[in-house]
């Protein structure tokens, strides 16, 4: 049997849709474990990235942050916290927030720092205060990259929440981890498929958001430069 047939069989078994720990329950839980850390991380990381991009102070640290962040094994980090603290709210929420900050911060920084220097000079020269420069010019122009950062962060949190099932978190990872432990491939495949669907939905969500939020001038400009 292939992965898809295992997954399909399991997902279409109605028994899996009722009771505690059922598919809809875990889907909602996983959404919660994704949205909450993402929002907290965004609230911290977007203003920080924008501020560093605008002022230039601290830029050196940001540049090196990406590499450092990529090398951290999240499973190890989660396990370390559980060993010391046991399984608490904090044990999963804090690492998810902290680990989601770098992609959001770095892309927000890149977005603002990458604004055409002529545009920044013009904005300052025509009498905008720093706040006005940031809110009326730099952030709108940086919006595409800020959204990419948020999207990357969201995907990352979906994936990490999946792994966190190993230390006891609920959500779709539960099916995978429990299935592996009890040698039942059905829930493993089904859980994996649902997680992938969720990830793709996140991508779709941000694609729509991009269409809604990014100023028209930037989108057509980006399209013009891509087809060249």
């Amino acid at each position: 049997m292939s992965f898809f047939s295992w997954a399909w069989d399991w997902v279409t078994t109605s028994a899996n849709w009722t009771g505690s720990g059922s598919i809809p329950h875990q889907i909602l839980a996983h959404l919660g474990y994704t949205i909450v850390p993402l929002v907290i991380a965004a609230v911290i990381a977007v203003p920080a990235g924008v501020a560093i991009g605008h002022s230039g102070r601290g830029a050196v640290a940001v540049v090196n942050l990406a590499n450092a962040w990529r090398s951290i094994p999240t499973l190890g980090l989660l396990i370390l916290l559980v060993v010391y603290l046991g399984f608490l709210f904090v044990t999963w929420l804090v690492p998810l927030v902290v680990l989601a900050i770098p992609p959001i911060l770095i892309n927000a920084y890149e977005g603002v720092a990458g604004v055409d220097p002529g545009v920044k000079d013009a904005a300052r020269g025509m009498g905008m205060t720093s706040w006005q420069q940031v809110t009326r010019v730099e952030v709108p122009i940086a919006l595409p990259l800020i959204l990419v950062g948020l999207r990357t962060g969201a995907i990352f949190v979906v994936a990490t929440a999946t792994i966190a099932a190993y230390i006891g978190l609920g959500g779709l990872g539960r099916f995978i981890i429990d299935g592996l432990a009890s040698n039942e491939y059905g829930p493993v495949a089904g859980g994996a498929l649902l997680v992938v669907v969720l990830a793709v939905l996140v991508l779709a969500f941000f694609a729509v958001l991009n269409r809604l939020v990014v100023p028209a001038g930037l989108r057509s400009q980006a399209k013009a430069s891509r087809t060249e």
Partner: protein
Amino acid sequence: MITFEAVTKRYPDGTVAVDALDLEVPAGKTVVLVGPSGCGKTTTLRMVNRLVEPTEGRILLDGQDIREQNPARLRRGIGYVIQQTGLFPHRTVEDNIATVPVLTGWPRAKARARARELISLVGLDEGLAKRYPHQLSGGQQQRVGVARALAADPPVLLMDEPFSAVDPVVRASLQDELIALQSELHKTVVLVTHDIEEAIKVGDLVALYRPHGTIAQFDTPERLLADPVDDYVAGFVGFDRGIRRLSFFGSTGLSLGTGPVLGADATVAKAQDTGEPWILVVEDGEPRGWIPAASLGGHPGDTPLGRVPAEGVGHTFKAGPDSLRAALDAAVLSPAGQAVGVDDDGRLAGVATFDQIRAAIQAADAAGARDAAEAAGAGQSDNSKKPGARAAQGAQPGAAP
């Protein structure tokens, strides 16, 4: 009016960008700062709207020290145009132009209406109002940049190499637009360029910088060409400054003759009688061509001149409005060595020889020298800031820069 008093800009690593500068920019005039790369002209400009703060000295705007004003508020009262335009890519053309009015509290509808006025003022089609900057050509973007700077009707306009990034044809037309705008608006304009031709064309006054933040000469373009203070200035201004200077002399004082002029129905015999080496044939009042006297011999005496093959008129000049340079150029291009002057309708006004042009040049020179002497005699107290000044920093005529 903008006044620089002993302004110096020194950076932490020791480089001095601007060195004890004294300069007075009269209200309603275009002052061009020109010089080699790194001479401090852009730094000087950016000190006016406090994008750069002087290390020493002070800058007065209409008598008030600019440091006493809040920087953002100061800048909203000063138009600022830069080489890369800095147009906001996320806003339409009209919203770009409306930026400062909106910033100062205008309702958006009123600001947009004003923007559309300015779009026409800078010579663009109003249909471009809703386009985005990346959809415009380089020349169009520059015009939008100028419109944006003028939106709040600031008395002062700062321009940093505004036309350097476009091709020469577009640049010439933008320069002409600026001159035309200024004749209407009379803003106090400070323009930075590295192109001496642009400075001479556009400026009422030109400040020519030495390489390290001092001014070699601050004068009218004509005086700069006529009387460079030293070899450095003469070299920067360029080798044919004598001829280029003639652009500043009008041709109203040029006497025109009609000696060699005959109608197309005049006969060959009459032409030969004049004794002129070249005959200018006119028809319906307009010049048609030059006939060399030597070729008249081959035709019977009663042939109308209109039938005799003639050489081209060459280039004509508008007698009165055009400069002596145009007259000289017309004489050079004419096969007869005489300049053909016409009026606005293209009808012949008269003809001028090289000698007559030379006489006009000498007269204009003498008049110019008289004016300069009167001006020098009148305002005595502080010559260093006024035009015609030999800048105090080691710029003795003939001294090595």
